[in-house]
């Protein structure tokens, strides 16, 4: 331990002998680690937004369906358990959030035009805050109960259909016997969505109203449940599995949407690649600095060896010097990255490329997300790889022949 203190002191002093070189290298490390962490925060934020938007559109962390529903989302493939029975069980289970809904393809017709949409028969109270609909941002009003006779459609769809609040539209779908099931609705509200495609894709009606229209009694198409964290849905998944029988399919969000699921994995891999690439770009300068530092100290290293300092202590001294340099750089870089994130925490507006972001499945506000584990990852990767990069110059220094080294000019 005593030896370590001496080596550390030597390393520290050596570091500042050529302060210009140290400062330039430090600047490079600071910039590199800043870029690593800042970029990681932006990307994380981007992916989190995509996944959250995706989950609010699915919606939920875990969904229950008829086994055939996902390939054939029709009224023929309803969950075989009556809704009241299922609701009673779920209400008693104390889940954070859950709702069951009817979800069928339908055609919406105004006096001017018609479009294909997905009709959602929902329980508005249960779903509050769980889906992409913000109840307070509705023009007009949102649905008030499962028996609400009105319908809420997207603002974009309303424009296409040339309809507005208070006007009537007709929804056409089919009942389980393949008879046309239709009903007139009065438009009571218009919703806005982050992803504009949703405004054309979904229309909302009361669950009971929809069940009556489709003549499906007390049955629903899907049930979804929400847990605390989208990254860890195991608890919710097993809870839901216990509440339903074997005759249904229970899937988590990353199985339901392969794009979202892989996105998370690919991003984790990509961030590691990014950190390593930056490190490699830095490593050339780092090794260079150490090679030079060793080179100009050949004579004193020879002297120390001749005086009886063990080679492994020389090795240690160089490595400590390198790690000190890296640590200072990393601390400053991390701090700057943290500072850089602060003013944009509330979101950066990237709406100039809004439709492009739409295409990537993102909204036009970007929220950086600085995760502790990403900061640790970047720092640990740099320190560990930095250690290995310093081995070669340090090894050379430790294995000088004392006499040759001392006499070297």
């Amino acid at each position, binding site marked *: 331990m005593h030896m370590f203190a001496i080596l550390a002191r030597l390393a520290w002093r050596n570091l500042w002998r*050529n302060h*210009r*070189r140290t400062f*330039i*290298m430090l600047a*490079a490390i600071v*910039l*590199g680690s800043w*870029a690593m962490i800042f*970029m990681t925060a932006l*990307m994380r934020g981007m992916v989190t937004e995509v996944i959250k938007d995706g989950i609010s559109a699915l919606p939920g962390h875990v969904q229950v369906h008829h086994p055939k529903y996902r*390939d054939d*989302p*029709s009224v*023929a493939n309803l969950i075989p358990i009556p809704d009241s029975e299922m609701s009673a069980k779920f209400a008693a289970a104390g889940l954070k959030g859950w709702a069951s809904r009817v979800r069928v*393809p339908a*055609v*919406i*017709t105004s006096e*001017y*035009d*018609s*479009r*294909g*949409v997905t009709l959602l028969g929902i329980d508005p109270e249960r779903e509050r805050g769980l889906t992409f609909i913000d109840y307070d941002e509705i023009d007009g009003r949102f649905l008030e109960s499962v028996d609400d006779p009105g319908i809420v459609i997207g603002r974009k769809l309303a424009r*296409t259909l*040339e309809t507005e609040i208070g006007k009537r539209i007709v929804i*056409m*779908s*089919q009942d389980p016997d*393949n008879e*046309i099931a239709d009903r007139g609705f009065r438009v009571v509200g218009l919703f806005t969505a982050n992803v504009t495609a949703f405004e054309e894709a979904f229309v909302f009606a009361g669950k009971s109203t929809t069940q009556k229209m489709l003549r499906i009694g007390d049955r629903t198409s899907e049930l979804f449940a929400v847990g605390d964290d989208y990254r860890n849905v195991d608890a919710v998944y097993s809870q839901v599995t216990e509440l339903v029988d074997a005759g249904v399919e229970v899937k988590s969000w990353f199985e339901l949407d*392969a*794009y979202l699921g*892989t*996105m998370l*994995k*690919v991003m984790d*891999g990509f961030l590691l690649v*990014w950190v390593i*690439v*930056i490190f*490699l*770009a*830095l490593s*050339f*300068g780092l090794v*260079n600095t150490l*090679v*030079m530092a060793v080179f*100009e100290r050949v004579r004193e290293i020879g002297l120390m060896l001749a005086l009886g300092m063990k080679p492994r202590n020389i090795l240690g001294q160089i490595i400590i010097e390198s790690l000190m340099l890296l640590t200072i750089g990393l601390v400053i870089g991390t701090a700057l990255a943290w500072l850089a994130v602060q003013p944009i925490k509330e979101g950066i507006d*990237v709406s*100039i*490329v*809004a*439709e*492009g972001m739409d*295409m*990537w*499945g993102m909204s036009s506000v970007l929220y950086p997300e600085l995760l502790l584990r990403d900061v640790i990852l970047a720092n640990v990767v740099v320190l560990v790889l930095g250690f290995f990069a310093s081995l070669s110059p340090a090894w050379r220094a430790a294995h000088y022949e004392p006499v040759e080294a001392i006499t070297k000019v």
Partner: protein
Amino acid sequence: MNLVFRLAWRNLWRHSKRTWLTTGAMIFSNVLLIFMIGLQFGMYDLMIDNTLQTLTGHVQIQAPGYKDDQKMRQSVADVAGLASSLRTELGSDRVAARGAAFALVSSEDRSYGIAVLGVEPEYEGNVSTIPGLIKEGRFVNGPDAAEIVIGAALARNLRIGLGQELTLLGSGRDGSFAAAVVTVVGIFDSGVADFDRSFAEIPLRFFQDMFYMDGAGHQVVLTATAIDDVPELQRRVAELLPAGEELVVHDWDALQPGLKQAIRADMSSAFFMYGILVILVAFSVLNTQLMSVLERTHEFGIVLALGLTPGRLGRLVLLETAIMGMLGLLIGALLGAILTAYLGVNGFAYPGMEELAAKFNLPARFFPELTLPTLLAGPLVVFGFTILSALYPALRLHRLHPVEAMRAV
């Protein structure tokens, strides 16, 4: 000049390790830049091509407002006649007329609301890949045959196969009830289930009869031979439009505004990363050149005392840097070209990329593009920054006093 060059060359190899480490940093980032930029632009081209080729085409003639609202009555009169006269005038077959409407398609068991496109069977294949994606049966033929081609996912959901009949229900241009019975003659498969589920194609004349279009349609789709020829095509088409009719000519960017923006969003994050990489290399060069100038203070003092001007010394340092930069550029470009060319032939895959790629109509393997711009852009910027970062050490020489410098050890 020859002498100065030889001097510079020898100076570089005084510390061959240092020179190689600095050059190594350049080579590393050059190879990475060539590969990444090649990959990026290869991907963008594919994204554009694959998105536009399926249905959109490069240029479309539409009625004003149709692009945003897509209403039935925003139509182009005598659309087939317009397309045929454009084919003659332009001397190109890559022109096809279309009509578009929404309809409820019903089989024995199921009904779905989808878009129904009326197409010219003999020309559609020139502007769209759908006729080529027929996996079962054939494309519609005969201008007014009661035939339909549908996507594989839709066929599965409708539980229908070749030769069976579908009922189409919709509303005509005048708002009246439109209905027809058609036979499924072909099934296409684009690989994206949601896309395949969203539309079906019937012959244009049949479409016009069914929806009471009176010879009108909604778009004339044109493709250029290359994406760069689009502005020229758009201009010529605009000139050829019949006088007195209100029509507009949109290019692909107007038709798919998300595409360019998605590319722009991706580009800006990529350029941020490249920028960091280049600056890190610049730091590496700055460090090396500053060191090399500082350790030569003594000898620079002597040559200054002998009458050499600081300006010439500065040019010597810049020449050294330029030689080093040139080495990095040439070796980097060579290795980068080899790597990119190899992957350009064999393709490159990243685990999990398949699902992400499918969302943007991209194949699972990527083939980076190797052109002169993608090859040279990165290395030239690196070279520029290399020279830039040597300016400080070179200019520092002007502050050197011969006598003091000679005293320096």
